[in-house]
């Protein structure tokens, strides 16, 4: 029963991710006085792409062709261990939050290699930048997550969220720090403004888009879907770790439905925040990103230290 539920939840997660991306676009368009595409536009794009025959460079190797499948499936795996509707998730016991970060690193490893595979300047440029950003973002993310795991004294996401739920509403300085750190990391890792601009195709500024420039058709669909999944994953992490209220603790239908509504509401609000910040801010220069991320790292570290000094005193 639990296993079945885990599968359904993962599928639901995968199915809802494009909707979230559509909602981001919708909010941004309205904030910028543009006419918004339909909320379902990302689904239409994905369907269109899956029906197209991919064009692959003759210089590409097998790694280029297999990379989209690896990227998509590892991102899907990462998604499967994040509690979306209910806390008690059987998959969470086979992969904890450190493994989750590992999955994302796995996907990134292949994405970057795929960028280097064809041997164009764009691919190399995107790969180099992506690795730079992720090398700085990954420790910051782990710092933020470690604060949570030390509070709950477990690295299992299900148990950790359950712990936060049981504690009730407590104002913890460490959580405020790590929440802000995780939000900054999420912005960087999902390639949003001010770190990267998902809408740009200007040679000098693109990061994520530069790596996947050679992809088309099904391959592109998988990579796009994976990055939508990643956006939603960070959203759910932030929403469910720091504001877990509403998530189902039992498996009755009404509670689960309520959980679904709760998470959709939380995500919708988060996206509004994201859209406002994307509208207000401009993209940074690449070499300002390190300051942005070391700030995130510092916040994570402060969160950890304030947990150790203020909250965990014996």
């Amino acid at each position: 029963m639990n296993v079945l539920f885990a599968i359904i939840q993962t599928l639901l997660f995968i199915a809802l991710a494009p909707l979230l991306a559509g909602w981001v676009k919708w909010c941004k368009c309205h904030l910028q006085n543009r006419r918004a595409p339909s909320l379902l536009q990302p689904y239409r794009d994905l369907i269109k792409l899956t029906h197209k025959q991919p064009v692959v460079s003759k210089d590409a190797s097998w790694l280029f062709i297999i990379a989209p499948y690896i990227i998509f499936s590892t991102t899907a795996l990462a998604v499967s261990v994040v509690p979306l509707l209910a806390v008690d998730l059987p998959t969470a016991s086979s992969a904890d939050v450190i493994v989750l970060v590992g999955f994302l690193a796995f996907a990134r490893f292949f994405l970057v290699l795929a960028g280097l595979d064809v041997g164009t300047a764009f691919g190399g440029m995107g790969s180099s930048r992506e690795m730079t950003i992720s090398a700085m973002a990954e420790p910051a993310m782990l710092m933020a997550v470690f604060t949570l795991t030390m509070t709950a004294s477990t690295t299992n996401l299900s148990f950790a969220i359950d712990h936060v739920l049981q504690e009730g509403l407590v104002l913890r300085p460490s959580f405020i720090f790590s929440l802000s750190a995780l939000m900054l990391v999420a912005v960087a890792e999902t390639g949003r403004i001010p770190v990267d601009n998902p809408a740009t195709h200007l040679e000098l500024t693109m990061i994520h888009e530069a790596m996947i420039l050679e992809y088309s058709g099904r391959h592109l669909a998988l990579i796009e879907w994976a990055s939508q999944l990643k956006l939603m994953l960070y959203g759910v992490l932030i929403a469910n770790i720091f504001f877990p209220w509403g998530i189902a603790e039992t498996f009755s239908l009404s509670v689960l439905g309520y959980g679904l509504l709760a998470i959709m509401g939380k995500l919708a609000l988060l996206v509004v925040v994201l859209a406002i910040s994307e509208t207000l801010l401009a993209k940074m220069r690449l070499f300002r990103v390190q300051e942005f991320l070391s700030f995130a790292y510092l916040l994570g570290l402060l969160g950890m230290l304030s947990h150790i000094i203020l909250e965990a005193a014996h």
Partner: protein
Amino acid sequence: MILFLAYAAVLLSFLSGILALLMRQHCSVIKWVHYCCTKRPDWQQRLNNWLEQSVYPQRIQQLSFICLGMAGVFAMIAGVGGLMSEQAMTAQLPLGLPWLPWHVRFDSLSGLFFLIIGIAIFAVSCYGPGYVKGNNEQEHPFAVLGLFSGLFIAGMLLVLLADDAFFFMISWELMSVASYFLVAFQHENSANRHAAFIYLIMAEGGAIAIILAFGVLASFSDGGAFTFDALRNASLSDTWASVAFVLALVGFGMKAGLVPLHVWLPEAHPVAPSHISALMSGVMLKVAVYGLIRFSFDLLGDIQWQWGVALMIIGAISALGGILYAMMQPNLKRLLAYSSVENIGIIFMVLGLSMIFVAKGHPTLAALGFVAALFHAFNHALFKNLLFLGAGIIQHQVHSLNIDDMGGLIKRMPHTSKLFLIACMSISSLPLFNGFVSEWLAFQAALQVGVLDDAVLRSLVPVMAAALALTAALAAACFVKLFGMMFLGLPRTRHAAKAEETQDKGMLFSLSLLAGLCFLFGIFPGLMINLLDNVALQLLGHSLPNATAAGWLWLTPVSAEKASYSAPIVLFLAAIAGGISYRYLRRDPAMALRESETWDCGFGGLTPRMQYTSSAFTMPFRRIFSKVWIIDETITKQPGTMPLQVTDIHYELHVSDHSWPKLYQPIEKSVNRIARLVSRMQTGNIRVYLSYSFFTLIFLLWVIS
């Protein structure tokens, strides 16, 4: 029984060295064969044919490597036996000093390192024949290479068996000196001689520190005895124990390559033949780790938390420094050598954490850290051997070690590239591979820091965990760059475009074996962790609380509620997810792909020169962490040409290590200065020398009276 297997491994590696010496003794071997088989002419004939002049060198090489391979197998069996046995085996050999015969002891800690060495030399013995085939026998005689390889391996194995300080130091020196000759093997290059000399100086400096450390310990032991049993019972004051620990740390750290004592490592490892650099980087550094563990956890006993803090900080500096330096190296083997510095740093960091837990009275957590450190040592031996052996194949095929001379090798060398990819994924600690498991265990140990009472320690450990996370992320960047530049993209040189897959089955087999082990222990880490648990039990007196509490599929180092990881399930799920997406999207093979030109923005004419180079790839890192290196960047433009003519701009980049100008050059200068002062005494005048002896005599008489 196990002890005999261990002896057999040592003897076989000696034998392989001695066999190599027969390389040029064809006539005497034939004579000897005649002498031995006078009664059996048919045997004589057969042996004669087998050892015919034309194939004789090959036969000897084969025999020598077969001996090495058998030594490896015996060492592996002995190692596993040692890991599984509850008790240590001891013996005395009728060798050595008259009042101090060689004491031998084989416990599970020695067993683990026997296993590491066994796997490595087995892989090397499969790889070696293919590797030395192309050598010019006149320039680089196999006799020298084989002899010193045999001695080097025997030395390493004997270090692990030693149970008294004399025997330990003799084996240690055998290992150091034999490896000096291996580093100097291609001595026609002055750079190689220089590297070997630096290595020798630092190895001997380290050995002196180790001898002093033993000396401090022995002076407190019962009657100044040098057996490890006596040293274990020595009761030291805290200060003297710390002195001994610092000396041991310097001595073993010199060999292990801790920053700033690492400078010999990137010089010496690249110039040795590839299978020897694999042994040096993958295994010899581990022997140094063994030495420190044996010295501090076993001999010194009462561990102080300050030592743990020192190890952790030095380890963190080594890890970060190592990987940042590695990233900037254009030379493949230098890059790998620096990455060994990083991994040794990680091992020491986790050992330090374990020491803190021991000193603060949390033995089960200490066992967790200890197991994580040992597992990382084991894993690093596997993937670093794989990388170095792969580097050897690539050097043979591309005739260069500069990664900017490669590119596109994934198509030319399909097998090597796949195996190398596995090594890169393991060392970047990606899930499903072994490197990830040891790092995961290290994080789990660090996250239990809440149990400590000391607030400073409680905040220091998470900072170290953050350093570990940063190291892992940088390592991923470094090895993505390495794989991308070497194997992907378009070939950057003619040699790379013409490279071919190696035809030697043995070389590919040894690589596949190591890659298979990397994957096996990534999926079933429990196999190894159960064995390592035994080491923790013997040395610390405690094992992991319940490593497999939730069943054999799961790894639960602390308890099932706190953390669990199940690689088999993850692999299963990954296979399902990948399989579904692949099947669904490639239903129609006719529609699968269309090949076309690479997108060139409509300008046409993409050339390999337009690709990112390794220095371009790491440029953002160079800028962000600019204080870490000494960066010497020069851009020269030819005067009088068009301003943007790319061909007229010359760019040169030199990235070097801070430790040379900051630490070693001042030492070198002061040694020279002192030497000059001393040389003033030596006037060359016999009367002055006579007066020196006269005054010395008077001084001694005065002392005696």
